[in-house]
């Protein structure tokens, strides 16, 4: 290996030219073939039973996420202008390509079925917009008397009315969103305000906003990192060459993805983040070694310096890169494809960063010459003195490091108990962003913007949901969920239609707003509804054979706590339904999001544990001692624990991005540990003195690690200025992980290394 690398030193131009040419080819591929994946359904494992069932149920009942257009008029909605706006917006939405005509619901499309003395009356609320006071008043009364519309399509205070437009899968684009917004804008007047909300908007905006914000922030992060790196290395050449490693490895990763036709998912935007954090490390360690070498040997030629650098550093660079890469490869255990891709491509990037560090950096040295290094001052330089002093202090107070670490671990474990998982999308936006405010506005006037679909499945038993006993049980459950939970606004299913028909056929008397006792009666009411109302409405709540029922709960929040609390209450009825031969299943995007998050986290924790084991085994093999494997794992474990602990205390829920960050803890933690242990080994064998070995290691690896930490921490703190909260979280957590890994390595790990006496056994 060393020989091969030394051979490369003779042909630096070829190395650089080859790297640039291949990079250019990848870049061209990227320009042509890269595409973003914004459809969140594509992220989910299609063969998971929960998703398979949900997808089927979505097909049976036409469950789609709806865009909610709310028309607000403080003077009330029952006037010519507002009803005209409602009609026109309904019609315009129906005409959009992304929306099925029949999937637009508003007061304009709804039927009003009312009971009269001798029968029943089926009418539209209005078709042509009325202008007379009398007609307007009639509409108002009709709405107020119909529980199918009052509180559902028109708010109880009569200042807001909504249009719900279900959109097809896979159609949300930036253009579509802007088209909706500009459409809505046309109808705003001094009296009439129009708001847009709903899950497709939230999902779509998030899928677009996150990566867009990343695109803006990453160059700034890179710039800051470059600057700090320059301050640390005090050499333009070294800085640029180190950054070129990050640049080339990122380019190759995305180039390869483009070649293989793999789209960019939201998590893929984390790849450059990882590569920045990890890729600069190799360069820093190489240059740090070079600088120390040149201080001692100011007259060395560039060839000598490069040969020495390769000789001492190729091993730790390869070791760190391989362990890190394997850590990421462990993400292949995840059931979620974007995460598998993330793992495998980050691993590829890490290995490429290794290759470039060992080829391009020495080649750069040969071509551009050595960086200028000030010769060592008399009496040793400040940094080395600091490092020696620090090492001495740490070793003097060994128990302090251990105790403090133990305390931190205990506190972190306490914090971890508070951690919760959140699959909410809305929680990812600023509290005062339009999207959150509109959502709150609609939630305060209507049942809720988030739907949870419960599918009751009689498993092929036809007409099960014409049985009054079953319907009464369903209604009981609906009432319990609505009454027990403030978060649940309304629920809706077949029972609502049956109740309505019973009331209508009994002269609109309120006491008949119940499920009738006879099954034939239920069947006849449903037939009557089919004959008089829009039969499509029934298809959304019950299947053709009346053996599957869709109950929709409207929730005022999409966060996992809200959804789980609803599920808990629903589950109280599981046994009752089981007695009727009916099982409970769920469907819809809210539920899928919940399952999906669980899946991601489950995979994340699995791969975290798995990679920890792999890392310990690898380190044990590399250093030929299981003790060292365990010691090397300490900073990683501490970093992961602290990271989760702080999230618990700060009430940052685990989400897909924050969970992925545990990978970075391992990736970086290993780097620090391996460099440090390897250096400690060399120094121990060279000096044979425990304290001196520690001091020398601190001055060499400790210095490089601190540079690495400072550079990456400053870089990622830039993300705190991001406009997208998840990216801010990311910046803070990456910085925190870097810091913990660094501190853990130079304190507790050093103490353990020192106390374990690994390299001093023979002498005893």
């Amino acid at each position, binding site marked *: 290996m060393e020989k091969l690398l030394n051979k490369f030193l003779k042909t630096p131009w070829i190395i650089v030219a080859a790297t640039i040419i291949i990079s250019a080819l990848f870049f061209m591929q990227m320009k042509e073939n890269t595409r973003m994946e914004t459809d969140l359904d594509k992220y989910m494992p299609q063969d998971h039973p929960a998703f398979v069932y949900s997808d089927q149920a979505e097909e049976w009942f036409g469950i789609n996420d709806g865009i909610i257009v709310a028309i607000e008029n403080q003077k009330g909605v029952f006037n010519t202008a507002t009803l005209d706006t409602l009609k026109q917006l309904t019609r315009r939405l129906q005409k959009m390509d992304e929306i099925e*005509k029949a999937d637009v619901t508003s007061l304009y499309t709804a039927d009003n079925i009312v009971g009269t003395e001798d*029968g029943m*009356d089926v009418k539209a609320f209005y078709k042509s917009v009325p202008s007379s006071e009398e007609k307007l008043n009639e509409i108002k009364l009709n709405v107020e008397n119909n529980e199918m519309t009052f509180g559902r399509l028109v708010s109880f205070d009569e200042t807001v009315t909504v249009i719900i437009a279900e959109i097809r899968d896979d159609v949300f684009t930036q253009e579509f969103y802007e088209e909706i917004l500009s459409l809505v804008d046309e109808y705003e007047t001094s009296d009439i305000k129009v708001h847009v909300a709903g899950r497709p908007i939230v999902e779509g905006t998030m899928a677009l906003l996150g990566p867009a914000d990343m695109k803006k922030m990453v160059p700034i992060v890179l710039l800051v990192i470059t600057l700090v790196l320059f301050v640390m290395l005090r050499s333009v050449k070294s800085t640029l060459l180190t950054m070129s490693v990050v640049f080339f490895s990122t380019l190759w990763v995305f180039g390869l993805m483009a070649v293989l036709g793999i789209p960019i998912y939201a998590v893929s935007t984390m790849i450059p983040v990882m590569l920045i954090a990890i890729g600069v490390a190799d360069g820093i360690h190489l240059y740090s070694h070079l600088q120390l070498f040149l201080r001692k040997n100011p007259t060395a030629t560039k060839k000598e310096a490069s040969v020495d650098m390769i000789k001492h550093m190729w091993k730790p660079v390869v070791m760190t890169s391989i362990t890190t890469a394997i850590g990421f490869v462990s993400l292949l255990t995840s059931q979620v494809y974007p995460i598998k891709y993330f793992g495998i491509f980050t691993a590829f990037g890490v290995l490429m960063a290794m290759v470039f560090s060992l080829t391009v950096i020495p080649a750069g040295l040969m071509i551009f010459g050595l960086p200028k290094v000030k010769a060592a001052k008399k009496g040793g330089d400040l940094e080395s003195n600091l490092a020696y002093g620090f090492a001495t202090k740490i070793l003097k107070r060994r128990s302090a490091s251990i105790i403090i670490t133990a305390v931190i671990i205990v506190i972190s474990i306490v914090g971890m108990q508070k951690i919760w998982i959140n699959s909410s999308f809305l929680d990812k936006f600023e509290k005062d962003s339009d999207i959150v405010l509109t959502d709150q506005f609609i939630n305060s006037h209507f049942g809720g913007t988030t739907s949870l679909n419960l599918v009751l499945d009689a498993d092929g038993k036809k007409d099960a949901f014409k049985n009054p006993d079953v319907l009464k049980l369903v209604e009981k459950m609906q009432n319990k969920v609505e009454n027990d939970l403030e978060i649940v606004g309304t629920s809706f299913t077949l029972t609502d239609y049956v109740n309505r028909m019973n009331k209508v*056929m009994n002269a609109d008397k309120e006491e008949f707003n119940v499920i009738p006792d006879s099954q034939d009666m239920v069947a006849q*009411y449903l037939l009557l509804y089919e004959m*008089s109302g829009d039969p499509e409405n029934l298809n959304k709540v019950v299947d*053709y054979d009346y053996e599957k029922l869709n109950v929709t709960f409207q929730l005022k929040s999409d966060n996992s706590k809200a959804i789980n609390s609803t599920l808990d209450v629903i589950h109280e009825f599981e046994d009752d339904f089981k007695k009727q031969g009916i099982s409970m299943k769920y469907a819809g995007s809210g539920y899928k999001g919940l399952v999906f998050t669980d899946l991601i986290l489950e995979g994340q924790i699995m791969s975290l544990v798995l990679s920890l084991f792999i890392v310990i085994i690898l380190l044990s093999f590399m250093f030929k001692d299981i003790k060292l494997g365990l010691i090397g794992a300490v900073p990683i474990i501490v970093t992961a624990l602290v990271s989760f602990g702080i999230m618990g205390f700060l009430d940052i829920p685990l989400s897909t991005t924050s969970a992925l960050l545990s990978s970075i803890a391992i990736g970086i933690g290993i780097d620090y540990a391996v460099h440090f242990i390897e250096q400690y080994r060399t120094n121990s064998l060279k000096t044979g003195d425990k304290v001196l070995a520690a001091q020398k290691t601190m001055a060499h690896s400790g210095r490089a690690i601190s540079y690495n930490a400072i550079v990456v921490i400053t870089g990622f703190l830039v993300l705190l200025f991001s406009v997208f909260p998840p990216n801010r979280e990311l910046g803070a957590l990456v910085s925190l992980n870097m810091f913990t890994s660094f501190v853990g390595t130079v304190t507790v790990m050093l103490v353990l290394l020192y106390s374990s006496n690994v390299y001093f056994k023979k002498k005893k």
Partner: protein
Amino acid sequence: MKTLKIVIVATLIMVAGFSANAQLTGTEIVEKAYNRAAGDDQTSMLTMTLTNKQGKQRVRKISQFTKDLGDIEKSIMFFQSPADVKNTSFMSWSYDSDKSDDQWIYLPALKKTKRISSDSKSDYFMGSDFTYDDLGDRKLEADTHNLLKEETIDGNECYVVESISKDEDYMYSKTVTWIIKDSFIGYQKEFYDEDEDLLKILSIKKYEETSGIFVITNSEMKNVQKDHKTSMVLSDVEINTGVSASKFTERMMTRGL
């Protein structure tokens, strides 16, 4: 007398067929199709099969009676199956004048006859893909009819007539009908929605001659936007058997068959 009547009707149809070569306007063609002889009364068993997107079906058997009383057409229907709606009956009186239909429903479980009033002819018939208008309730003057072309489909020489609704708020902006030249049977019809997108296609699968009158015995309406279809098959068709006008009352509805 009856035989004579049939002969006259048959002759009229023949005459209509032979005179088809004359320059008929779109309106005249549709008028002839609308006024095609249907007999004074008709009794039949209707099997209505609804098929949804997933291919699931609902089958309903209905025995129906209709009688033309000049300016009123009365019909009554009794559900035979499924069992849980057996003897549910439905009666409608539709008027030649602008007066909207009178409709009643009888639910045996409720043991009451109720009047249904509806302001719209665009209601779907029995939850099917047919509206009442599609089943022949549409007035000639409600549309502007234009003869587009003549075309042969499935071996039938047809007029192709476009009918554009005069009322902008009507559920169909226009329909295009293929009317067979010699019989004036609407053989195929396309329905376009408010936004002029194709909504439904009606196709006639089979028509039979009973007592000298053409009766469509198998037709299918497909809603292409919802991917939903309804097939209507008539059996045991009897025409001009002298169904009594007294059959079409609320009291008869409660009796069942």
